[in-house]
């Protein structure tokens, strides 16, 4: 609850404070309050709590994903130096909205929370008040409204099918499936899975780099928090195929599209689409939440590094030429960008690799081999365009000539060159504080790369023992057990007669003869079991059935016993 109060109070105080104190103070108050919330979250880790009749839930998903969201917002706050005090205010509003979204299993609340953090984003997108800013804002707004409408209709149908507004409600039949898929579509829009991703490249490129940073990191975290809750439904069959198609398209489009890009912000937009696809892989197995959380944290830090460096180069477009030889001109920026790119590419010593590994493991655990191979192939393609950017950094050839004639270095130092910038426009993120964030983030990426255990523990809900035990037994496959011999309809003499069959290793099953329980049998290590009948069966028709303890039906075999 405290996080809720902290964020709420901060928003309200900031709204009023803005009129009395200069913009710089509001910015630091905002940074202070978000930082405090983050610290609080960190220290009260693992304390589960539900309030407001189940509408506000504080569990590992909420804490983890809120942390990632707040991280993104905090980073944007520090980088965004501007004269107008509303900028930090809107960011805090967005942060609060994201917390609402991450910590509520109730669908209408999710919808409202979605709106709460989208509205400031629409405005922030147009912050630079230039041609492209407004275009980005409008596109994001209209498509956002459209997806909200779809979300709402999904909620209505969901209510129709299940009678409840809670995310994880069980249901079946076409109405429920349509509802679920509509909701999935709306949330897919938010996290930019492919058929719903249209807005991402244009909006990331149009809005100021600091805001794009926030979008790439925080918005994705909030979106996936909601997705994790919505898709927590037991029977995966309902939405499995739909999500699989989305992810396959996302992974292919995101990576291949990125190959043809000429401008680094738009490239990072495509890369964020691709990464959304990889995260989606984790949704299939029931225990995917911690893996997704860790991936998002690693992704947020890495892509944050990339965006932060771009923010230091220019708030507008950053064509490749501007980055050539950055390592030699601005070593700190170069190294930070390098680490970010390598981590995004998923190279081991950095956090990105562990994120990918964990998510792919979840996919492997859910037997999604097709998607897994596709993801791996496309991440090879991804490695190419990250490497192309990386090679630009270390390219020693002549320095890039910025269009304004002033070499990039000079552009970094002075205030923004007059290019239709409103007085309140965002200045470049070259202050001491923003370079500090770069160093901290880079350190975190490397630290998580070396000790992924800590990062993962941040997101895992169940106390460790239970989880590792869950992971130990090979695969929590949907129950497949059967009787293999004797075959159905066989005629056997009474004496040479025993039952064999298959099941999950280490599981106990009950064997019934014509409805009466004969004996319990435990499945061996190689997934097979056998039972020699205690009492010789009476001649005549017998139906042998094997069931899971506590269930009423299971596969059965009809056998005729001769004299």
């Amino acid at each position, binding site marked *: 609850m405290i996080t809720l109060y902290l964020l709420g109070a901060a928003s309200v105080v900031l709204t009023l404070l803005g009129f009395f104190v200069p913009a710089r103070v509001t910015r630091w108050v905002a940074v202070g309050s978000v930082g405090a919330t983050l610290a609080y979250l960190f220290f009260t880790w693992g304390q589960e709590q539900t309030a407001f009749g189940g509408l506000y839930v504080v569990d590992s998903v909420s804490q983890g994903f809120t942390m990632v969201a707040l991280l993104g917002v905090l980073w944007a706050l520090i980088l965004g130096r501007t004269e107008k005090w509303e900028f930090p205010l809107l960011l805090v509003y967005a942060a609060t909205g994201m917390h609402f979204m991450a910590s509520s299993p109730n669908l209408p609340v999710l919808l409202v929370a979605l709106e709460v953090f989208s509205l400031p984003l629409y405005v922030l997108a147009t912050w630079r008040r230039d041609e492209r800013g407004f275009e980005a804002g409008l596109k994001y707004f209209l498509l956002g409204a459209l997806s909200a409408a779809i979300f709402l209709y999904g909620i209505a149908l969901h209510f129709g099918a299940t009678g409840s507004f809670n995310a994880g409600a069980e249901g079946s039949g076409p109405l429920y499936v349509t509802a679920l898929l509509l909701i999935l579509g709306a949330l897919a829009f938010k996290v930019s899975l492919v058929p719903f991703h249209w807005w991402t490249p244009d909006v990331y490129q149009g809005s100021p780099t600091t805001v794009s940073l926030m979008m790439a990191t925080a918005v994705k975290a909030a979106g996936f928090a909601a997705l994790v809750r919505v898709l927590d439904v037991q029977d995966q069959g309902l939405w499995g195929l739909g999500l699989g198609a989305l992810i396959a398209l996302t992974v292919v489009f995101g990576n291949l599209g990125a190959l043809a890009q000429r401008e680094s912000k738009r490239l990072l937009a495509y890369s964020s689409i691709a990464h959304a696809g990889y995260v989606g892989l984790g949704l299939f197995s029931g225990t995917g939440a911690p893996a997704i959380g860790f991936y998002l944290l690693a992704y947020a830090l890495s892509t944050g590094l990339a965006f932060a460096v771009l923010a230091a180069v220019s708030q507008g477009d950053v064509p490749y030429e501007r980055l050539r030889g950055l390592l030699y001109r601005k070593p700190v920026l170069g190294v930070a960008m390098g680490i970010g790119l390598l981590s995004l590419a998923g190279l081991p010593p950095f956090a990105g*690799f562990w994120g990918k590994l964990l998510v792919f493991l979840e996919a492997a655990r859910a037997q999604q081999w097709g998607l897994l191979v596709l993801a791996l192939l496309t991440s090879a393609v991804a*490695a190419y365009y990250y490497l192309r950017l990386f090679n630009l950094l270390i390219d020693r050839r002549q320095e890039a000539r910025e269009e304004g004639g002033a070499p990039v270095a000079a552009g970094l130092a002075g205030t923004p060159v007059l290019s239709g910038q409103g007085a309140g426009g965002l200045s470049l993120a070259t202050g001491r504080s923003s370079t500090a964030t770069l160093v901290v983030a880079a350190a975190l990426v490397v630290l998580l790369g070396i000790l992924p255990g800590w990062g993962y523990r941040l997101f895992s809900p169940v106390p460790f023992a239970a989880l590792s035990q869950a992971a130990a037994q*090979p695969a929590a496959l949907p129950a497949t057990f059967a009787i293999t011999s004797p075959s159905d309809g066989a005629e056997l003499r009474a004496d040479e007669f025993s039952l064999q069959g298959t099941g999950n290793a280490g599981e106990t099953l009950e064997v019934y003869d014509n409805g009466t329980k004969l004996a319990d049998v435990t499945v061996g290590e190689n997934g097979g079991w056998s039972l020699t009948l205690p009492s010789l069966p009476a001649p005549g028709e017998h139906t042998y059935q094997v069931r899971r303890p506590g269930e009423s039906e299971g596969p059965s075999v009809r056998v005729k016993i001769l004299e």
Partner: protein
Amino acid sequence: MNYDALMHVGLFLPLLAGIALLIWPSLGRTFAVAAAGVTFLLAAWLFAGAQGEGAGYASQTLLLEPIQMYYALGLDGVGLMLWLAVSFTTLLAVYIAQVPIRMLGWALLMETGLLGIFAAADLVLFYVFFEATLIPALLMLGLYGGRERLKAAYTFALFTLVGSLPMLAAVFAVRYLGGAPSFLHADLAANPVSGAAATWVFLGFLVAFAVKTPLFPLHAWLPSFHAENHPSGLADAMGTLYKVGLFAFFKWAIPLAPEGFAQFQGLLLLLAAFGAIYAAWLAFAARDWKRLLAYGGVSHMGLGALGLFSGHADGVTGALFLLAASMVYTGGLFLVVGRIAERTETLEIGPVRGIAKSAPALSVLTMFLVMAMIGLPGLSGFPGEFMALLGAWKASPWLTFVAFTAVIAAAAYALTAYQALFQESPNRTVPDLTPREWVFGVAVVASTLLVGLYPKMFTELIHPVSEALAKLLGGGA
């Protein structure tokens, strides 16, 4: 004596030294040589320690609990030998190469990666080191390479990355289809994958390790990697150490999916044999020393691969011994070529002739290493090649014949190049060996001679391990 602690220190010492060098290059070369030297001493100490019970060391601590992944290191006979080879060659490289100090830092970073590859006893940890070593190698090529270095960097990085991604899929498949409780080598080997899955798993490993052996079609990145690297030969020597394909096949691919290996054995033998003769043939037409050595290396590894894939104990021992030995002398040759390039300002074979007249010691040193490379008996090249031949013959006589014609081709291309540079009527005078180069020369010559004349101290350790592998494949001793 707590050897495990030594192992951990030995593994991460170069990393720390490397980072220190990157941040404060003013520490200078002596610091780098000291770090590499201590690592070598540790490796030697570990090696000596293991002589007794021959078991080696193992230590594991949980790194990522939910997926049962351990930070597990295990050094058996093979690992110890390769540790010795890697640390010795790095010491030589760092001691002799005239390079910007920061590049030494990258080399030390790479050394940790390599030591990690050979010591990792957890599949995911192995994958981490396998990929992590790519970064320093890529940076050394990208930052300090020649004109076409970016293109070479692309090809090198992409070959490795695209190669190792199917391996990641194989890592998952091995764990989840094999039913092993953790990623530890012992558990994974205890329940290998069987049936159709084994083929796919092995294919995954095959692609990644073929790039690193390098086997025929996937060797395309090697010539440009070596040709474009820093002329001093440091990056090339480290690159030679990075050819871990054979070891990786031996330790991870074959034990984890023996049935998969059985299916691919024919193809692999063919590729190895073809690679050996093809690369030797290309070396004949190479116009500069680095490409020649690169192709020579590929041909050598082809012979080793033939031995390993034969599935017989002596073939496997031969392959591993050849791997370790070739690290020392091929690395040494690259460094010597670096010294020659510094004297004659060119790596081409041809323009400069007859420098033996003015630099006799240099010519003797180069002659020695060239002879080691073409497998002259009595030097460290021969035992490995010979054992590989004995094993390979049992697997397939014809392929062995084809592959080992590369031994003849080796004599041809190596001596032609040697003669062109050292022997004809001199058109230049170059300074002879400096004291530092003398020390380097003596070290390389002594080690090659010792290992060549008395291979028993290594084969004794390797043979039991390769016999176990042979038994696993039903190949017999």
